[in-house]
């Protein structure tokens, strides 16, 4: 058990206690209204600041990582997506990168046996990452049922698809599966657990992991667990909860009676995640769009890229070069610009 992991776990447990105790002693308006708004403001302002900060720095050179055959002569087939020379190619490349994690799909694992190296497809990280992100997205979208009235049909549709599988376990000691199972929530929990276990048990990954890698994992795990608990085990009065959440988005605030503390923990976790987002590695969500090794055309010899801060530099001119070597050049029969004068002048200063 290392420190980075422990500190993050304790931090999330601490957040749990804060929200639980806070709502238990009646600070429900704080955890139900004030903090979510504050978190939202921090999130939007923070993301704005970060992304515009990136945008402020120019892209002086066009340096895409080329992962396929370049465009040359017409009889050589170009890899139009992996080494795009058109905006369309770049668009598809970015689409694959963002929606299908193209580069991560290339992942291999190096193994060494008796001095022989092998590199085999290592697909689990890609699967885990895809599962995690899409489960998260689905979960987010279906939560819109708490934030819209009437609920748009596409939200209901996603929700219906998500709850396609029906598993009901109805025994005296355990009741599970009513009302309906959301696959996304379970996949999210499983994927986030996988990502955590990977950090814990794959040694190089554990070695590179910082507290700030564990913290969001624990936080999301907390969000998923509290959500799952409320839905399947402890049960909450969701009509009241929707009253609260609708109050937030329509600015008619209310804290209905009968909402359990666990809900405030759930909401607090989400608020913390939102507020933490812009200051953390989670900004890879925005950064993936802006990576100059992926989002530019690779036809760099065909179309000139302009560097806004290109400045003149000191170079060693041909004149200075010839002045130094003129005699030797003439002797070797190399052409020169200037034949030597009887009294050779001082070698010229290098010019700008």
């Amino acid at each position: 058990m290392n420190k980075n992991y422990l500190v993050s776990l304790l931090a999330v447990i601490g957040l749990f206690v804060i929200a639980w105790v806070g709502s238990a002693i009646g600070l429900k308006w704080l955890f139900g209204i004030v903090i979510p708004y504050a978190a939202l403001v921090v999130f939007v302002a923070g993301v704005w600041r970060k992304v515009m900060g990136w945008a402020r720095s120019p892209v002086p050179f066009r340096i895409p990582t080329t992962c396929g055959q370049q465009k040359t002569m017409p009889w050589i087939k170009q890899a139009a997506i992996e080494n795009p020379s058109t905006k369309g190619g770049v668009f598809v490349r970015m689409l694959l990168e963002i929606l299908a994690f193209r580069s991560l799909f290339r992942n291999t694992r190096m193994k060494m046996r008796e001095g022989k190296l092998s590199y085999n497809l290592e697909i689990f990280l890609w699967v885990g990452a895809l599962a995690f992100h899409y489960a998260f997205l689905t979960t987010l979208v279906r939560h819109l049922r708490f934030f819209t009235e009437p609920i748009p049909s596409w939200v209901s549709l996603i929700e219906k698809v998500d709850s396609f599988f029906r598993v009901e376990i109805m025994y005296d000691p355990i009741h599970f599966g009513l009302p309906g199972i959301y696959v996304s929530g379970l996949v999210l929990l499983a994927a986030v657990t996988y990502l955590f276990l990977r950090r814990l048990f794959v040694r190089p990954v554990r070695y590179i992991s910082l507290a700030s890698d564990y913290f969001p994992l624990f936080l999301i795990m907390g969000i998923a667990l509290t959500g799952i608990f409320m839905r399947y085990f402890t049960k909450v009065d969701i009509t009241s909860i929707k009253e609260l959440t609708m109050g937030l988005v329509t600015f008619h605030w209310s804290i209905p009676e009968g909402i359990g503390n666990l809900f405030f923990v759930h909401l607090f976790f989400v608020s913390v995640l939102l507020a933490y987002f812009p200051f953390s590695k989670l900004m890879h969500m925005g950064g993936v769009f802006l990576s100059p090794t992926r989002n530019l055309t690779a036809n760099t010899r065909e179309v000139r890229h302009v560097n806004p801060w290109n400045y003149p530099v000191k170079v060693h001119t041909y004149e200075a070069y010839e002045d130094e070597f003129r005699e030797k050049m003439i002797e070797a029969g190399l052409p020169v610009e200037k034949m030597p004068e009887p009294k050779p002048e001082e070698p010229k200063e290098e010019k700008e």
Partner: protein
Amino acid sequence: MNDKKYILGGLLIFIVLFAFPFWFNLGKAAPAPNPVLSEKAKAAGKCVMPTEFMRAEHMKLLGMWRRSVVRHAKREFINPEGKQYTMSLQNTCLNCHDNKAKFCDKCHDYASVDVYCWDCHIDKSKGEE
């Protein structure tokens, strides 16, 4: 290369999407649902279990009832107060809550909870209306 406007555009699209619930509900009143209790229910004063429990966990109770009736043919339900009921959606629940549209659907539509009770059971209120 000036790509600031594209980045700004992308950022704005993201924020607009993110703010979807705020503009979607703009100008719409979204009152909390108000399920109508029938005269009979009002007269009874209380359900088979306390109201708090029923609001949050009625689906669990119904699920247990179904299992008890279908699997074990046991139809007796005795609540913590010692009162006895027949486990039956049609004859017990719907006896008081006799209008699905005005009672069940109010909250279920509000929270987008789609139930399959009515795949088998008949919504009596419909026939009467």
